[in-house]
């Protein structure tokens, strides 16, 4: 199980196999010298009763010093050449993961929360790294040290070895039980912590409601209670944490005690030299690290394995949107869009779009309206292939969009959403986002076209003003206009405005729409909107209700027919009056 999961990650290590080899050799040499040091001490102590000369002592000290220096050097070697590659592997995996993220479509991003993805890209990959670096290292280290220590101890005294090792299986048993319980305890504590997070999250998102209803104190109590639960669960886990290392040192102490007790008697009986006795104790002490190390590796490998699984889950995800990488390389698109019996079902009983057929001519302005949740936005996500319909075809200039490479298709269509996503960069960088344009003049012109001029001149650094947390916080309307500029600068053949002016006042909206009309004459424009006034320049308006087209015609035609459009235009005329008379 673990091995099969390791495979992918080991393949990352391959690129650094030379470094790893150097590291491994350094590690073995470190251990060899480490084992030699108690042996030198043994020789020294056994020599002492014969009253050695000062020079001889100096030789001992010198050998020891030399051994230690080399050990230090080798230890540096493995630290650098085993941990180093593990960091580089982390670097490679994270890069590949990011590349993979860029390939996945929106159905994936709807399935998994961003927080979860982030934690996989950071915490989980760190766990993998730790296992690859520390884990493999400790495993190799333990192997070498345990076997050699054991061999040397048996060489010194088989009987003493047997006796001293008596408590050691207890450590293994203890450890086995411990890891079993601790991962369970960990899971529970993590869940409780997540509950604390959830309370804070909900509180902050709904803080206006909570404060308006004066619920602070009650929320504080709720929070307090959850904290108490967390504390209790945490203390249960702590007991496990406290008992293990403590018992470990207890059992190791027990081994030392046995060696002291039985070994001491052996020395008195003359079966063991004093030097051997001291060396034996030295080796026993050396064993304490690998004994704990095994536990450590066990833990790391458990964490590492589940982390690897979680990372691999992402790597094995594929985009559902299949498009040719190369293909039709048509250059001049006209901007004709055709939907042919397009159907889409959201979920089993969720809403659906049924058999929608619609043709939008090049340069036409098509308005789209309908009640909330009727499927308008979904329908116009199809041309961009953000999602694909279940049935039916969509054609751009008569070519089925499935036959076009994604980048070519998306270059033709400008898309502006109601709540657009801006990056924390300057306004200029945000507008130039999808192009290589760096000419300030062109960007200024586009900003002007999108009606941003008065706003930008009021910002401290103009176009160079940072957006978001580290800069100005923009209003919804400003964000919408920057997003519009970002789409317009690419000179799209088709412009889809999905409720893109909802935060603008009527006056600004009219100005911008007029700019587009006059300056981008050849662009096909699709305007999805609730507000009737937004449709003032639309050649035709399509009404979508319950996933079906319930009306199609010019504004004047629709206003005279009984139906949704007439209803909302009556209801909104008062609002329109407000906007006209009061702004």
């Amino acid at each position, binding site marked *: 199980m673990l091995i099969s999961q390791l495979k992918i990650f080991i393949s990352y290590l391959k690129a650094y196999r030379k470094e790893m080899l150097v590291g491994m050799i350094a590690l073995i040499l470190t251990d060899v010298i480490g084992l030699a040091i108690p042996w030198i001490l043994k020789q020294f102590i056994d020599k002492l009763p014969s009253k050695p000369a000062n020079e001889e002592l100096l030789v001992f000290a010198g050998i020891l010093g030399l051994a230690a220096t080399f*050990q*230090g050097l080798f230890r540096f070697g493995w630290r650098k050449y085993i941990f180093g590659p593990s960091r580089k592997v982390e670097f490679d995996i994270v890069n590949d993961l*990011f590349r993979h993220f860029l390939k996945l479509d929106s159905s994936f991003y709807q399935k998994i929360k961003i927080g979860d993805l982030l934690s996989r890209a950071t915490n989980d990959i760190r766990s993998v790294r730790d296992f690859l670096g520390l884990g493999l290292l400790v495993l190799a280290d333990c192997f070498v040290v345990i076997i050699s220590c054991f061999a040397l101890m048996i060489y010194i005294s088989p009987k003493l070895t047997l006796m001293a090792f008596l408590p050691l299986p207890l450590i293994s048993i203890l450890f086995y039980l411990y890891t079993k319980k601790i991962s369970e305890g960990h899971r529970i504590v993590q869940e409780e912590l997540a509950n604390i997070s959830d309370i804070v999250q909900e509180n902050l998102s709904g803080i206006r409601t909570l404060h308006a209803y004066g619920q602070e104190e009650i929320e504080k109590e709720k929070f307090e209670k959850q904290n108490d639960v967390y504390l209790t669960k945490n203390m249960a886990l702590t007991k496990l944490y406290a008992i293990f290392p403590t018992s470990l040192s207890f059992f190791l102490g027990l081994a030392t005690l046995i060696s002291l007790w039985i070994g*001491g008697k052996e020395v008195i009986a003359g079966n063991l030299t004093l030097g051997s006795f001291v060396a034996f104790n030295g080796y026993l002490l050396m064993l304490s690290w690998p004994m704990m190390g095994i536990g450590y590796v066990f833990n790391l490998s458990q964490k590492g394995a589940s982390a690897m699984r979680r990372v691999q889950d992402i790597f094995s995800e594929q985009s559902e949107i299949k498009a040719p990488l190369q293909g039709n390389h048509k250059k001049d698109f006209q901007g004709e869009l055709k939907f042919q019996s397009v159907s889409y079902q959201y979920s089993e009983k969720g809403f659906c779009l049924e058999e929608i057929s619609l043709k939008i001519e090049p340069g036409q302005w098509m308005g789209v309206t309908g009640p*909330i949740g009727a499927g308008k936005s979904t329908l116009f996500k199809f041309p961009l292939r953000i999602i694909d319909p279940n049935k039916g075809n969509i054609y751009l200039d008569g070519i089925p969009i499935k036959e076009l490479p994604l980048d070519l298709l998306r270059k033709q269509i400008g898309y502006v959403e109601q709540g657009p996503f801006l990056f924390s960069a300057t306004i200029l960088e945000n507008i130039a986002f999808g192009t290589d344009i760096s000419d300030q003049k062109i960007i200024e012109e586009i900003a002007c076209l999108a009606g941003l001029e008065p706003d930008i001149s009021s910002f401290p650094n103009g176009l160079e003003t940072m957006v978001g947390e580290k800069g100005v916080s923009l209003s919804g309307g400003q964000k919408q206009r920057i997003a519009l500029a970002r789409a317009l600068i690419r000179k799209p053949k088709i412009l889809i405005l999905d409720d893109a002016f909802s935060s603008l006042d009527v006056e600004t909206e009219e100005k911008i729409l007029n700019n587009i009309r006059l300056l981008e004459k050849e662009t096909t424009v699709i305007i999805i909107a609730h507000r009737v006034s937004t449709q003032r320049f639309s050649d035709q308006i399509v009404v979508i209700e319950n996933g079906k087209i319930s009306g199609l015609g010019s504004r004047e035609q629709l206003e005279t027919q009984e139906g949704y459009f007439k209803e909302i235009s009556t209801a909104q*005329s008062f609002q329109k*009056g407000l906007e006209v008379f009061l702004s």
Partner: protein
Amino acid sequence: MTELAGENLEERYYDWAVFRRIVQYLKPYQTLALLSILLLLGSSLCQLAGPYLAKVAIDDYIAVGNLEGIDQIAWIFLSILVGGFVFQFTQTLLMQYIGQNVMKDLRRETFAHIHKMSFSFFDKNPVGKMITRTVNDVEVLNEMLTSGLILIFSDLFTLVGVFAVLFFLNWKLTVVICVIFPFLAVATHFYRVRARDALRKNRSHVTRLNTFLQENLSGMRTVQLFNRQKKQVNDFESINRAKLSEDLRALHYNAVYVPSIDVFSALGIGLVIWYGGGEFVQDQIQLGVLVAFVQYLNKLFEPIRDLAEKFNIIQSAVASSERIFELLDTPEEILDPPKVKSQKIERGKIEFRNVWFAYKKDDYVIKDISFVVNEGESLAIIGATGSGKSTLINLLCKFYEPQKGEILLDDIPLSQLSKKDARAKTSWVQQDPFIFSSDIVSNIRLGNNDIEKETIELASRSLGTDRFVNKLPDKYLNSVKEKGSSLSMGEKQLLSLTRALVFDPRILILDEATSSVDTETESMIQNAIKKLVLGRTSIIVAHRLSTIKHADKIAVLKKGELVEFGLQDDLIKQKGVYYKLINFYNHR
């Protein structure tokens, strides 16, 4: 897009101040903390006793062949083992208990502090940031308390203890060994300065990387629609590379420093062999003492090695605490009046007196507004987008404070009321109501368990909310998903109206929805509103003429100014803006 790093790169050298402030949180647990330190002392002593016992065994018993003595030593050793076990176990538990409690205190304080913040704070600070403060940063800080404090005390005890024993065993040899310490100190200093720098930079790159990743994941669709993939990969890799290089730098320092400690330790043992061996030959020192020296030297270097390994933990804990304290030090913007005598709003009269308000300095969005709404009257506020309607409501709820002028409830100035009293008799129905991920009942009464189930059912029946509730499988106990996604817009609005009704307010604030729901739901909502308004003072931010026509008074806002105010009929007679509006509508 690469500019957002800077923040954490600057050097900060007030670790001590932060540390002292953390220690303040230990005060309520001082007795326990003291006990824990004593236990630590005990366990350190037990640890130190081992090599000494070995020394006694070698010199006093093994060397002279005393078998009984060995048995005795074995018993003493065993009891010390048991003692050490008990001390260490209790100490760990106790320290964790203290740490967990401090964490709880800190969380409580942070949570309460966040609730004290005004809305302008939330406008500036994203939710994610606040969650990180209250959850993750506090968690990291616990690490500092438990590992950090233990590190300091236990290492201190070990260092002092080892020295004391060594000195006691043979002072001359101890002095000789001290030769290595200046070198060790220099090495440690070099390591500390460099490692700290590398770790700090590394951490700031990690933050940058995470921010970049989060931003790109959130804006993935935009990246893909604009064909930006290649550029984003380049940016990402360059940040990742910067992180890797600091990572490797920190690793390099560590790889040099840790082995160097071992070399120093071996030098110490070499000195013991050379000088101590000489002393032994001259019968100045016992063999057991030499063996004990070797073992103690190993123990002496343990704390120092430990420090290098835990350096990273402590560094990030300091960073976390700085962030928490920064939040806790953010002053409360809307303070309750100092001597609060609880006052109840009983009638529900509202008065605005020359109120001015600006979100940004001197950029007034409410300009000199004055009006009165008497008990039981209804007021419709109308105006274009951005005319200040929502701001007016926010001021009335005391979510913001006006810069000039005064708002009075029942003739008491808001500034003399606590926030709690000011809001106690007001219910606010938002345009897009917030639904908590809980069941229907909890969403109606919020946390207020005094409101009984019967009251809730009665209210639901009278507003017609029960019609959709009864269709749910678990009725009132049916859970509603996060952000209420399983409820339709109309249902959410009905739920929020019912919420307002059960709180039985004197003042009702209604933010009418602009978006359209289906006709049937719409008429249900209108009926509910009519019932709710009855006998209460109400303020309605209105978008529909039908709503406005039911109101007693009308306030017409234009760019933050009150252009018209008065009774329906009076305004019609005045033939002003309102009159024109009605005419425009009727003669469309």
